[in-house]
């Protein structure tokens, strides 16, 4: 029975890897966007995402909470202290003993160091701070860690990515590994690499997080989306970042 099970697992592994993207075949969503959308991202003076980055820069220096501390009071100049940080998230939090994403990291700092209320998911302030921090890693390769402690979450993320879900019974893999480059309702299906988050999505007419986008995808296949901050969501983020390892951060990206 054990031998049958390991043969079955090996076959599944082969089946899954057959549909995987080859590292050299990976392309950013930027490559699938129209020239006009790309032009919007390329020009910092016209990229709407920069409105949030600028807001984040202001919030970075603003004192908050009962401790009356600003991010800057501990972290100094973000351009130095935050360089490369977003490229390594989601990261393992030793105290919580699980991976957390950048938004959760910011809120943990707020709660523990600033003694302030956490910022609500998708709130303007949280988006602004996340965008500002991620912006400091722009151009740097995604480098989420390979710790053994992260293995369980990564495997869960991989499983969720390949699992069919929703009334349309589609998996992430079917669109983003097997059908990227083809059209779905007027847009070209990208490979789903989270290189530019938080990003300005034209559909939202606002900056938004990776978690928001994942929820949209799930609604798109008529599945019940995971809650913000759910372990499934963070595991999926971790898997996606690992799948995109080495690709440069583009925050704030612009996408349709």
């Amino acid at each position, binding site marked *: 029975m054990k031998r049958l099970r390991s043969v079955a697992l090996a076959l599944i592994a082969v089946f899954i890897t057959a549909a995987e993207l080859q590292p050299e075949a990976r392309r950013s969503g930027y490559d699938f966007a129209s020239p006009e959308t790309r032009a919007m991202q390329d020009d910092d*003076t*016209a990229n*709407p995402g*920069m*409105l*949030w980055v*600028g807001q984040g820069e202001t919030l970075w220096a603003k004192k908050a909470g009962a401790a009356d501390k600003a991010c800057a009071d501990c972290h100094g100049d973000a351009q130095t202290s935050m360089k490369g940080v977003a490229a390594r998230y989601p990261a393992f939090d030793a105290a919580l003993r699980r991976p957390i994403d950048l938004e959760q990291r910011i809120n943990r700092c707020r709660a523990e160091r600033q003694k302030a209320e956490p910022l609500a998911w998708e709130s303007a302030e949280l988006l602004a701070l996340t965008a500002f921090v991620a912006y400091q890693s722009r151009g740097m390769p995604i480098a989420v860690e390979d710790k053994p402690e992260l293995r369980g979450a990564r495997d869960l993320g991989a499983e969720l990515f390949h699992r069919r879900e929703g009334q349309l019974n589609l998996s992430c893999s079917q669109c983003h590994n097997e059908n990227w480059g083809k059209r779905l309702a007027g847009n070209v299906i990208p490979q789903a690499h989270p290189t530019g988050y938080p990003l300005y999505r034209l559909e939202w*007419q*606002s900056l938004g997080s990776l978690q928001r986008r994942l929820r949209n995808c799930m609604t798109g296949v008529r599945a019940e989306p995971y809650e913000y901050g759910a372990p499934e969501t963070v595991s999926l983020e971790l898997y996606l970042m690992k799948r995109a390892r080495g690709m440069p951060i583009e925050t704030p990206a612009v996408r349709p």
Partner: protein
Amino acid sequence: MARVLINLPARAKRGQVIEIKTLIAHPMETGYRLDGKGAAIRRDIIKRFVCTYNGEEIFQAELFPAIAANPFIAFCTVATESGELVFSWTDDPGQTQTETRHIAVE
């Protein structure tokens, strides 16, 4: 105070035509969207944008709901003399936000 991004050269030659790019954070609520209960969400847009150069109006835009959220407006002006460019955005309720930038013209 909505977040604003204004881009123009800090210095220019007299007579040079410069391009000014402006972005302001605003949802530009059209008035045509329906909320969860089926009621129309009230229109709230920036309806006018004005730019003055040392007090003289050099550009004005009247905007309608068909202008995208976080309005981007780029226009040109001749760098005539050093001084102040004042940008103002007025919304439906009549509130105006103003930003000032300086230019050195030699």
